[in-house]
């Protein structure tokens, strides 16, 4: 019931925004098409401006992942994750979570293919996929769009939130799905 409602919100949100905002603008005597083009032009410049930042970050993350260095890191933290009752299969996913959104989705899909979506691992992978955003992608794109290279404590906060999300997902899956 709730999910159906949420589903229809997701489906209707964009068409409704595209309908209501231009009509609202017209009523308020905004030259709607001219203003649209004016805003769209800004969007174009912003998207191009983030290219160098994203190239730098995606290359480093991709090399880190493809070389097996990420697996080495996952093996290194395994004693800690064993201690808190996280399945070994999940650890690489936790390491990947802040680095690559498409990577996490790929790994979560693979875990569900192997273990099934209703297994503990499948459920935990699902919750981890649906929790928190890809920290490094967000920071790179958002800061990159205004040319900021010194992120101060943002990385630390993002990673702390990711670790919390992982621990909470583990705890909740143990208690909700047993």
């Amino acid at each position, binding site marked *: 019931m709730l999910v159906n409602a949420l589903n229809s919100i997701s489906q209707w949100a964009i068409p409704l925004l595209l309908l209501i905002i231009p009509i609202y*603008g017209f009523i308020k005597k905004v030259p709607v098409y001219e203003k649209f083009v004016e805003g769209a032009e*800004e969007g174009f410049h912003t998207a191009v401006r983030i290219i160098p930042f994203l190239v730098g970050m*995606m290359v480093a993350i991709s090399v880190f992942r493809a070389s097996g260095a990420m697996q080495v890191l996952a093996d290194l933290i395994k004693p800690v994750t064993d201690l808190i009752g996280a399945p070994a299969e999940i650890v690489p996913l936790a390491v990947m979570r802040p680095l690559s959104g498409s990577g996490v989705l790929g790994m979560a899909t693979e875990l*569900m293919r192997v273990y099934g979506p209703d297994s503990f691992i499948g459920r935990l992978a699902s919750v981890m996929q649906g929790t928190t955003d890809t920290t490094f992608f967000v920071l790179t794109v*958002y800061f990159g769009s205004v040319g900021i290279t010194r992120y101060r404590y943002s990385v630390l906060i993002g990673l702390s939130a990711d670790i919390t999300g992982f621990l909470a997902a583990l705890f909740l899956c143990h208690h909700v799905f047993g």
Partner: protein
Amino acid sequence: MLNLIWLVLLTSGIIVAAWHGNIEVVTEAALKAAHDAVEVCMNLVGIMALWLGIMKIAESGGLIKALARLLRPLMIRLFPSVPPHHPAMGAIILNLSANVLGLGNAATPFGMKAMQGLQELNPHPGVASDAMCTFLALNTSCITLLPATIIGVRASFNSVNPTEIVGPCILATAASMTVGVTLDYLFRRRNRQRRE
């Protein structure tokens, strides 16, 4: 900090690849990622143009200001360094709302617009401001009511109940958001005390 993280990611990758005797993966991964990064941005061009165009109409009509006024009591507590009437406030609200509704492709353009607004207020242009850090703490740990992609994946593998993970997702995100916002508050307070 970021310089170090970037350096470690890249060099440790190359060293591990060399250690495992498959150095050729480095070249392939690096070139492919460089190509993919541009593709991500190119995909963003159209989406950004569309949403920032629509946002401009809403802004010109005064809709964004009205929205910001509605949430002002909350926003001035989260962003004390941003004037309550500043356009960045409206963009931040739009970005977070789009995130909550799971409209990822609308969230990014609104988010960049918010960053541009915050950058206008930033006294040190190359360095992240307090308000930017708060905004990104909220953004990276933001709740999505319906994680549509993963529900789709679960359904495609014939899950008995593909949406059973929605509740745990929301609770886990709430936990990470609480930690993010609390840490941000503590960092801000510490910095303020240092300055005084």
